[in-house]
């Protein structure tokens, strides 16, 4: 038996190595299969349901003290917006800029920065978590999204809030590539969800999304749309962009980015 064991051991070792390589290679292939993709993506709705069940609309992201603020708040994504419209708005310090609120609302709105500053404000020192893995702590100030939505008066069929942005992170052949994001009404009416126009006691810089950036504190950074131009209330996401509810969700990332 001991004479047989060595070849067997070698055989087992080789099969284990082959299995490992085959498995990972197979995973690459499976990644491209719509069925497997469907299974893998099912984890997102499980995460969503469990986290909503546990935290729902009530749990609050931790708020830090001024001493906790990151010395440098990293700029990520688009650092500048390369369109003539945006450059013209920036040149006038966004005096002509208006935030359009439309879609499934009873009262469409056009809000200037001054209008937004006159709405109920919230200031919060929170941690920003990028999907890449890094975190930065900053002090954000802005109008609560709920106060904007209350003024626009949602129609009963409204289910999602879509943020249309000024920047094209990519110029795809199909015309998509303009940044957008969307959240559900639970996050939209969460007290920490604000339309920030200030970071660390200064007006938003272009890199951080001037003139207006969404803060949706219990989700990852890519949900925090920068350069917000228009807010659209809708009952479905499949007719916007490539139909997954956001620029990065259209490119394989989770729409619900609570993890």
């Amino acid at each position: 038996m001991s004479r047989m064991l060595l070849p067997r051991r070698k055989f087992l070792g080789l099969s284990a190595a082959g299995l490992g390589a085959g498995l990972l290679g197979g995973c690459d292939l499976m990644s491209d299969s719509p069925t497997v993709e469907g299974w893998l993506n099912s984890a997102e709705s499980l995460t969503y349901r469990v986290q909503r069940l546990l935290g729902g609309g009530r749990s609050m992201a931790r708020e830090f003290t001024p001493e906790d603020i990151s010395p440098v708040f990293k700029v990520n994504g688009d650092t500048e917006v390369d369109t003539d419209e945006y450059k013209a708005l920036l040149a006038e310090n966004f005096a002509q800029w208006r935030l359009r609120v439309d879609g499934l609302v009873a009262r469409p709105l056009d809000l200037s920065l001054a209008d937004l500053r006159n709405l109920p404000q919230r200031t919060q020192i929170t941690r920003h978590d990028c999907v890449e893995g890094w975190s930065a702590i900053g002090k954000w100030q802005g109008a609560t999204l709920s106060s904007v939505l209350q003024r626009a008066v949602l129609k009963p069929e409204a289910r999602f809030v879509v943020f249309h942005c000024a920047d094209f992170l990519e110029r795809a052949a199909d015309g998509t590539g303009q940044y957008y994001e969307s959240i559900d009404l639970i996050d939209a009416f969460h007290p920490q969800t604000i339309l920030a126009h200030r970071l660390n006691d200064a007006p938003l810089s272009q890199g951080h999304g001037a003139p207006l950036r969404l803060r949706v504190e219990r989700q990852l950074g890519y949900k925090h749309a920068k350069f917000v131009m228009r807010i659209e209330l809708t009952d479905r996401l499949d007719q916007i962009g490539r139909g997954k509810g956001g620029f990065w969700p259209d490119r394989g990332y989770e729409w619900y980015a609570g993890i």
Partner: protein
Amino acid sequence: MTEPQSALLDQPLARSRRGEKKLVVRHALVTRLTHWMNALCILILLPSGLQIFLAHPALYWGQYGADSDHRAFEIGSDQPDGGAMTGFLRLGSKKFDTTGYLGAIRNADGDYEDRAFPGWATLPSERSLAEGRRWHFFFAWLFVGNLAIYFAFGLANGHLRRDLLPSREQLRPRALLADLRDHLRLKFPRGEAARQYNPLQKLAYVGIGLLLPLMILTGLAMSPAMDAILPGLVELFEGRQSARTIHFISASLIVLFIIVHVVMVALAGPINEMRSMITGKLAISKEEEDEPHAASAP
């Protein structure tokens, strides 16, 4: 789960051809099922985790950490103007050249590419944070469910306490030293003593039994939604970035465990050991050990 739960039940089930061996029940069905599900999950979680780590291969301590903050650990690449790319691993202030292995990896064209880990170590092998996350979180859920089943049964049927927790005797320095000596001499119990885990084995299993839940807790602490639901968790680890660092260290220790585990299986008799984890039955010698073994002391 109608099978006997204990390796200690005396159930000679078969005789080998030479008649000096007997098969004893080693692992309960639930132990075997959860072991292999766990193995599958870890086989997916490790490379998909490295894929996620590719996006920002640096570690910090505390609440925050990004490019301009102090990095405790980093894998990266340098490229002087017009020069060749070199890869490095930096731990504190110590920097190691890892060109070709970490940081700077040769691509299909044979050129160095800025990439923390080679393609064979990540899932998918191509760079895709989105797909890496999909694999990671799907199997993270399976892993959590599987581990919950394992611990629920292990507590209920006494497997954890009886088979894995070292006895006071086994933790005596003399017993540990004797076991260490046996391991170094590659001397493994073949007879009745093989029914019980030896002290070092038990310590390794207790260690992995702590590391696996630690992976879940540090993983959850990285979720911004979980941090709002359960603020105490992330504070337990002194912040999200330290939780991420502990997640990485803990994963590295799990890799170390797997290497030792597989080597030990290969040395102790791969056929017998694999059979015990598949069918549940381990062959042991019918004769008493020629030398009394430290681990077998009552």
